[in-house]
């Protein structure tokens, strides 16, 4: 059933490609009036785009440009929790964690449920040590703490001290500029300019663009001497597009993305005949809070506390999932929490204060009313109107699992809750998924080349990296794995363009 459904969705994607193909325009470079020309053209200023810019600079490119359609740099990358999964690092070894690139790939393949690309995952994981060092060379500083993001055999999500993607983006932006990279905001990518043979010559850009004012600015043609890298991120902010692919993801489900994540780059590449892959595999974050917008503070709090805390269904007063299972598993279960009328009835994350207070996120969620403190189980039950007796029993049972080191209820990894008992006072956050990541996108190979749907071959001079590409993660992406993947393929694209 799933296979057939996926085929039908793929078929729809292919039809879209056919429908759009006649709209493209081919030309000879000499026939184009170019307003600008650059050696390397990068569209998007998130992890993938900036990693490519830094790498191209290191490889000696003389004229690199990064275009960003928003008024600010960083896209979603600067808004996230600043985590990146790396295997077998000095920090992991220092903390006594055994890990390897092989184990990381294995975990990701399991999460991808048979659809992830082993070839692409291995390529990314093997570049991991290089990427880890590249970030540090740019000035990124990591915490002495590694986070279990769920679905992993080893704890490997490293986090920058800012606990925000800004801790990567701002140093990388600064480093890119130190290589002479030109960075331009309010430059919206409008489409590819291709030759008769299908190779990419450059791009159309709306210079002076302002969000939601689609006619603002003016159109210019930008020539790319070595190639164009599309690093425009996902489409979680495009409700119509994502709901067409997954009907459960309507307006009822918010998103953690910057407002620019509307799929522009993806749609333009589809129009150019690129191969779409896994577009309906859209991931929601199970750590999100309905009590604040976007990513906010709740995500950081729940990520820290999921390992040693419990998620409670308010109808039953009981757990309903393994709180450190992979994201899709958890998000799918969370979105099913409904009241008797079928309306969203967000679950509760209940964390013991004695452990929650060890992370800076607790102070923030309490201060901004994203979580609340309760002195007793009775107080929680009364406030949220849930069955007290069942909740008490659940907490008693949970403490038994902690003591035994085994969760017979959902098979949760208990090695991160050793000795951490659920005792009052409690910090409680509501949980409701938000669309977070689009596993689907444009097909690429291990050189970050964009693949044409027509013949399965690379489209010359066209590259894609990061969330706009598809096929890497399969059905479900593991937390913290996007950052290194985006950067690895950004670096790969730069190497391809520079023939390195």
């Amino acid at each position, binding site marked *: 059933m799933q296979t057939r459904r996926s085929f039908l969705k793929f078929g729809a994607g292919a039809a879209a490609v056919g429908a759009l193909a006649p709209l493209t325009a081919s030309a000879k470079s000499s026939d184009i009036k170019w307003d600008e020309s650059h050696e390397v053209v990068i569209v998007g200023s998130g992890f993938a785009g900036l990693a490519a810019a830094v790498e191209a600079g290191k490889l000696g490119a003389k004229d690199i440009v990064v275009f960003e359609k928003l*008024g*600010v*740099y*960083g896209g979603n990358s*600067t*808004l996230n929790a600043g985590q990146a999964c790396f295997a077998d690092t000095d920090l992991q070894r220092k903390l006594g964690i055994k890990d390897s690139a092989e184990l990381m790939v294995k975990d990701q393949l399991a999460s991808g449920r048979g659809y992830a690309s082993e070839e692409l995952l291995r390529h990314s994981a093997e570049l991991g040590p290089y990427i880890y060092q590249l970030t540090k060379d740019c000035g990124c500083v990591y915490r002495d703490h590694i986070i279990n993001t769920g679905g992993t055999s080893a704890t490997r999500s490293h986090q920058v001290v*800012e606990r*925000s*993607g*800004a801790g990567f*983006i*701002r140093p990388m932006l600064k480093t890119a500029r130190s290589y002479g990279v030109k960075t331009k*905001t*309010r430059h919206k990518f409008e489409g590819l300019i291709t030759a008769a043979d299908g190779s990419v010559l450059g791009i159309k850009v709306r210079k*002076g663009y*302002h969000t939601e*004012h689609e006619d*603002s*600015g003016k159109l210019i043609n930008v020539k790319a001497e070595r190639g164009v890298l599309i690093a425009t991120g996902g489409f979680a902010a495009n409700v119509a597009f994502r709901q067409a692919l997954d009907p459960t993801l309507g307006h009822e489900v918010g998103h953690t993305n910057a*407002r620019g994540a509307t799929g522009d780059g993806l749609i333009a590449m589809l129009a150019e005949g690129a191969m779409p892959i896994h577009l309906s595999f859209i991931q929601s974050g199970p750590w999100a809070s309905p009590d*604040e*917008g*976007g*990513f*906010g*503070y709740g995500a950081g709090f729940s990520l820290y506390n999921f390992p040693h805390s419990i998620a409670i269904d308010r109808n039953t007063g009981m757990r309903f999932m393994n709180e450190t299972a992979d994201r899709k598993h958890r998000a799918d279960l969370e979105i099913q929490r409904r009241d008797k009328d079928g309306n969203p009835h967000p679950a509760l994350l209940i964390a013991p204060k004695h452990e929650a207070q060890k992370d800076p996120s607790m102070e923030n969620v309490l201060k*901004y*009313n994203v979580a609340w403190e309760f002195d007793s189980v009775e107080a929680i039950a009364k406030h949220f109107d849930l069955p007290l007796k069942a909740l008490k029993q659940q907490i008693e049972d949970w403490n038994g699992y902690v003591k035994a080191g085994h969760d017979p209820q959902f098979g949760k990894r208990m090695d991160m809750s050793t000795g951490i008992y659920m005792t009052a006072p409690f910090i409680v956050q509501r949980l409701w998924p938000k669309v977070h990541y689009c596993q689907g996108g444009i097909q690429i190979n291990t050189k970050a080349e964009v693949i044409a749907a027509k013949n399965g071959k690379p489209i010359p001079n066209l590259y894609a990296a990061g969330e706009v590409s598809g096929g890497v993660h399969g059905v479900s992406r593991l937390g913290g794995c996007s950052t290194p993947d985006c950067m690895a393929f950004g670096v790969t694209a730069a190497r391809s363009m520079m023939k390195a």
Partner: protein
Amino acid sequence: MSKLTTVLALTFGCLLTLSAQAVEIRDHHKEVIGKDCKTCHDNGIKQFPSDQACLQCHDVDDLAEQTARSEEDKWQNPHNNLHYGKELPCQECHSEHGTKKPLCSNCHTFKYDKHKE
């Protein structure tokens, strides 16, 4: 040039059909700029000003200093914030001819009491 205490960006977007005489202008900008639209509209009257237009009169370092917060909340400073540093263009939070909320409000519940919508 005198430095104004708040950053106010200019936009013409939703008022394209109105004559220059009819567009609303902030009182303190009336006092300083009067009716000279081109002072800000450096991309032409029908386009948004560039992000450099505001900086002809307003200094981002001064603003960051004026809106600085305690060490605990220092990255909530709208003019020197965690995600964008001092590179958040005025027009992302301020509008001359319309209204705008702080960009941070899309995700955070920070208090920006002095912000004029």
